[in-house]
């Protein structure tokens, strides 16, 4: 009885099931591995800059006050606040797992179209992912330290999402379009959000020194690129490894 109802709705074919598990497994491995490394890099290189900025955001330090402020205040060290930093590690791993699932799914589509997916081609996938998710939106909505003036967060999220979507389509067209028309469309898609412009604040009110803001943006972009290149290589590697494993098991 139960068996009949089960078969009445079309069961997933073994090929589909194998594809499910290959995408999910390689995405999870790549995302967790790249996310863990990224979290440690961020905690070491980005977090101190953010904590430094928070001293100005909270008013403990005042820029352009009566006297010059030391550029080297005492900052809490690595994992000085284990809950805060631990949550950062978990959320970085989750975020990069989200990226990895999207990337590996697209890799599976590209492979069906005959493109080689491995750790080496994964490096390029990583660069494309970095441009899509980090660099394209960040070019006009620069990575910001806490305390800076910014437009309404909802508006910025809409612009961010639209920019990531157009950049993603553009990177796909550049990689796989293969003709002038698709390159032209890609260029327009990459330019459009920045020509239209990101939501900007009405006035400037940031209390954080520009040196800290600039270092934060540079570090965020730099660690982001390293993270994405790692993610791409890991995704390509695990995609290959999982494919071989399921072939051997079959």
């Amino acid at each position, binding site marked *: 009885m139960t068996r009949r109802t089960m078969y009445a709705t079309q069961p997933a074919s073994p090929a*589909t099931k194998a594809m499910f598990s290959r995408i999910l497994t390689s*995405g999870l491995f790549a995302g967790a591995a790249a996310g863990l490394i990224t979290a440690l890099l*961020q905690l070491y290189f980005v977090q101190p800059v*953010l904590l430094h900025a928070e001293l100005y955001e909270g008013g403990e330090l005042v820029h352009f006050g009566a006297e010059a402020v030391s550029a080297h205040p005492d900052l809490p060290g690595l994992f000085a606040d284990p809950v805060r930093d631990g949550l950062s590690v978990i*959320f*970085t791993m989750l975020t990069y797992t989200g*990226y990895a699932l999207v990337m590996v*799914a697209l890799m599976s589509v590209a492979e069906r179209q005959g493109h080689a997916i491995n750790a080496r081609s994964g490096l390029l996938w990583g660069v494309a992912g970095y441009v899509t998710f980090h660099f394209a939106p960040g070019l006009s909505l620069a990575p910001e330290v*806490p305390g800076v003036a910014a437009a309404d967060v909802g508006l910025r999220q809409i612009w961010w*999402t639209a920019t990531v979507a157009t950049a993603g389509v553009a990177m796909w067209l550049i990689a796989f379009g293969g003709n002038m028309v698709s390159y032209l469309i890609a260029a327009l898609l990459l330019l459009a959000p920045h020509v239209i412009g990101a939501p900007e604040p009405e006035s400037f009110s940031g209390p954080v020194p520009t040196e800290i803001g600039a270092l934060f943006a540079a570090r965020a972009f730099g660690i982001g690129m390293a993270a994405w290149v790692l993610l791409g290589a890991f995704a390509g590697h695990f995609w290959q490894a999982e494919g071989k494993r399921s072939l051997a098991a079959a």
Partner: protein
Amino acid sequence: MTTKTLNASAAGTSVIPALFAVVLGLGILTLTGHVQASALHDAAHDVRHATGFPCH
């Protein structure tokens, strides 16, 4: 010839897992990067700043 046909039919079935993974991935990113609920926002705060998501 036979192998080609088999591959083609396997290719036909494998769009759904890819679609599922994209939706799942974007769902995770929405939670870690965008949802403004304060517990989520506070936990993800430093990551959102460092990863370039609009934060607050």
